[in-house]
């Protein structure tokens, strides 16, 4: 490999068709190590589809996906997680009948390779339990440890959604609208969390809340109708007329 | 709360146990039959005939009161049959067991009979050799060998040359086919084809096609009484095998309680069986009229009724012989060679095999007074089970 630099995550000419409809059109995305990269675009621009393609929930029609330089296009979704590629969901996808601590013990045990042990405590051993406690402590979830997900408030569930991903200690983390559905006043809670993520972790996130995007992102890709319209730094995007037209446009024309 | 429950239960139990220890002079008979489930017709017939016999004897053998305890096995469930037999012996302290409608349930009870030395009269099991399972087993029914052999002989005597055999694919079916084949070929006839039909069959037309292609002059069928028999015979008529001149022969399939379900399809079928409710002997009149008086005019006995009735005859004889005491060996010694005039005709318990030696009647389904019956027209007297010797 003679790349001067390989990317944490890269897509090359990624396409996805559902029947005759092309939802992803030759997307070339380059996510650097330690990136804070936002994917923005109007509804239906294909942002979530792109995340689904990267994490292996959809098979691409053509193109390639590279994780830390190696081709993972035909690797199963489950194996990609083992390679350090982890996502969260726009709609909470949690273990609803289990407690918060159990929700976190599952990914921690998985990461520490204890999840096949058919005896002993469900928390595995002291290492798993300690890690679960550390995570909950960091996210201020300790008080909720023994509550079942079904008994939590929406914002708290949103935190658990991200906490499960963090418990896997990913190299690349894809956040699909982490603040979705959270009232404006409470989105600070999510922002705090995002800002405390380790610097070495590469983060790609989809978000509609522009305040959040501009505060947290260092680079932004704008997706329109399945293709990347423009990619650049926060300032470049902020100034770009095309982005204003397409994405923020309506407000200006009113 | 929970702990107060336990002494209460204990007290309740001891009360029940105490009660069952009373009445030293009561002889108990356990009857295991299907009172629920798809085969509940069996249980109904068995219970009615049993109750009739006991009532006709005023519930007594000499000084001894007889009590019958019924247990519901709910179909062909050998595990439950064994459990019920154990309970009858252990809890109800019965001296005799009767009932049992299927070979597997009969076999499941066999070693309880041996262990507890309880004479057990199997009401219905068509397989030869079942009685070898325990020295305490008796059978008040018949075996497939017993009825299929005379039927094949009669068929050959009528000049039939080519017979097609169709039987349900389980042990009595295999016996029926083997018996018929042996007797018919011995009489110089040819078996032109043979079908073992799975028990889960619903549509028989394919098999009718096979039978038709073999161009027999007679088809002999064996199916369990019930939906399979009805569907088989209807398919036989619908396929026009009757019009093509292929005669149909059977054994118990055309029993009177089911005949209404056939409509006109069963008319003319020739069967061989150890009993016909249309028989005219005084013993049979007393039996048939007794049932009608007790349970209504529409009651017609079937193989289950006659078996249950005669099993009580055998058990009452054993009670007489032992003077009501629990002595399985003495009872068994007394029953061997026992002769009596049953509604089915003269019957003897074969001292060597413990099987019944009985008449077999060739019968034809005919309309009498507006309803179909199995009209007997020829008797093969004193048939011993040919299957027991063969094996």
């Amino acid at each position, binding site marked *: 490999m003679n790349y001067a630099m390989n990317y944490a995550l890269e897509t090359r000419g990624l396409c996805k068709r559902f029947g005759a409809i092309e939802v992803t059109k030759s997307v070339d995305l380059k996510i650097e190590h330690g990136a804070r990269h936002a994917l923005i675009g109007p509804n239906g621009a294909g942002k979530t589809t792109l995340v689904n393609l990267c994490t292996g929930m959809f098979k691409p029609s053509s193109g390639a996906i590279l994780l830390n330089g190696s081709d993972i296009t035909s690797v199963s979704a489950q194996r990609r997680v083992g390679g350090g590629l982890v996502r969260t969901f726009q709609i909470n996808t949690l273990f609803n009948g289990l407690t918060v601590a159990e929700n976190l013990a599952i990914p921690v045990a998985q990461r520490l390779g204890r999840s096949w042990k058919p005896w002993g405590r469900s928390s595995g051993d002291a290492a798993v339990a300690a890690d679960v406690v550390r995570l909950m402590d960091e996210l201020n979830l300790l008080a909720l440890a023994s509550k079942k997900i079904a008994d939590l408030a929406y914002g708290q569930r949103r935190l658990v959604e991200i906490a499960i991903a963090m418990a896997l200690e990913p190299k690349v983390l894809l956040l699909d609208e982490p603040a979705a559905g959270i009232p404006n006043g409470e989105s600070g809670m999510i922002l705090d969390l995002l800002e405390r993520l380790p610097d070495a972790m590469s983060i790609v996130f989809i978000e509609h809340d522009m305040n959040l995007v501009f505060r947290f992102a260092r680079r932004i890709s704008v997706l329109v109708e399945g293709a990347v319209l423009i990619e650049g730094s926060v300032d470049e995007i902020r100034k770009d007329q095309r982005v204003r037209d397409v994405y923020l446009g309506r407000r200006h024309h009113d | 709360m929970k702990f107060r429950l336990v002494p209460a239960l204990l007290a309740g139990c001891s009360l029940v146990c105490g009660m069952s220890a009373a009445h030293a002079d009561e002889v108990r008979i356990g009857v295991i039959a299907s009172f629920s489930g798809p085969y509940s017709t069996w249980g109904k017939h068995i219970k009615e005939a049993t109750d009739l016999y006991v009532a006709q004897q005023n519930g007594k053998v000499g000084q001894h009161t007889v009590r019958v305890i019924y247990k519901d096995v709910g179909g062909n469930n050998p595990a439950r049959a064994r459990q019920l037999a154990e309970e009858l012996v252990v809890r109800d302290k019965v001296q005799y067991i009767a009932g049992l409608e299927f070979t597997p349930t009969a076999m499941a009870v066999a070693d309880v009979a041996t262990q507890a030395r309880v004479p057990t009269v199997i009401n219905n099991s068509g397989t030869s050799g079942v009685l070898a399972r325990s020295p305490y087993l008796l059978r008040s029914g018949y075996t497939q060998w017993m009825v299929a052999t005379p039927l094949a002989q009669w068929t050959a005597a009528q000049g039939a040359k080519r017979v097609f055999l169709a039987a349900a694919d389980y042990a009595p079916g295999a016996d029926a086919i083997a018996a018929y084949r042996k007797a018919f070929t011995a009489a110089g006839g040819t078996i032109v084809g043979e079908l073992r039909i799975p028990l889960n069959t619903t549509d028989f037309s394919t098999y009718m096609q096979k039978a038709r292609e073999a161009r027999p002059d007679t088809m002999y069928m064996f199916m369990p009484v019930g939906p399979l028999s009805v569907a088989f015979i209807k398919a036989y008529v619908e396929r026009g095998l009757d019009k093509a001149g292929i005669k149909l022969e059977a054994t118990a399939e055309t029993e009177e309680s*089911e005949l209404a379900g056939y409509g006109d399809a069963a008319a003319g079928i020739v069967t061989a069986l150890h009993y016909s409710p249309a028989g005219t002997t005084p013993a049979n009149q007393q039996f048939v009229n007794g049932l009608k008086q007790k349970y209504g005019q529409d009651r017609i006995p079937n193989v289950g009724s006659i078996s249950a009735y005669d099993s009580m005859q055998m058990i009452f004889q054993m009670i007489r012989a032992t003077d009501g005491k629990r002595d399985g060996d003495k009872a068994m010694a007394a029953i061997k060679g026992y002769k009596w005039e049953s509604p089915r005709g003269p019957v003897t318990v074969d001292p060597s095999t413990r099987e019944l030696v009985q008449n077999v009647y060739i019968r034809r389904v005919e309309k009498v007074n507006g309803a179909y019956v199995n009209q007997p027209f020829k008797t093969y007297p004193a048939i011993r089970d040919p299957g027991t010797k063969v094996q």
Partner: protein
Amino acid sequence: MSSMFASLLTVLFDGVAFGMILFLISVGLSITMGVMRVVNLAHCGFAMTGGYLTYALTAQMDLPFAAAVPLAVLGTMAIGAVLERTVYAWVYGQSELGQVLMTIGLTFVMIAAANALFGSSIQNIPVPQGLRGSVQAGPLALPVYRLFLIAVAAACGALIWFALERTEAGARLRAAVDNARMAGCIGINVKTLFALTFAVGCGFAGLGGALGADIFPLEPFYALHYLVPVLIVVSVGGLGSIKGTLAASLLLGLIDTLGRYYLPAGGGIVIYLATLLMLLVRPHGLFGRPA
């Protein structure tokens, strides 16, 4: 050679006739399971209801066959509608297991009721004279009653297809199948629609039970005996697909009949093996869509 060909044709004819009765009994279940997503193990009980009603009307009340069958179908529909609004409504939101439990319980009640009302032995529905016997078609002797069954089932299939594809009510139903909540939002009265659909589904089952009694004899355990083949037809065909149910019925009817003819020893196994393979390859059935 020609006689072999004639046998093959006869066997094929039997397979088609058997398949068409299966279709008649199963199609209602396919629609209701497709629309309401209820695992309805009591469906054969409705077929049995239709059969027993026809029996009661013909054999016990001496009505002619042609009048008794439609009345029995209407009666089954009424019973179906009442049950849909009561016991079935209780389990719409519940898990598949709750539905299994409730519908098995309902089946038990139906069996016990049939046993109490009509006894445990088989009841015969007398077929009118004109439908008995067989017609000669070349070398083949085709039973009139089976021809009649095929014709009725085909007509029912066509009727359902027309109602679903060409009528306003059918369009509403298809909308409700796709998305019940959305259908409710655009002003479709989902409750009434469901009750009506359920009743119609039961009606077809009742028709199958009444007309098919010659092949599936009528007795209280009918409701359980024929459940397995009916469930197989519905799942192989794909929930909610009329085309699929028809194809699966014919396919299974033919496989079963041909298997029994050419492989009598393994007669019972062939059909289940075929079902296993089909469902492994297409878990959602031949024409089903993933839920």
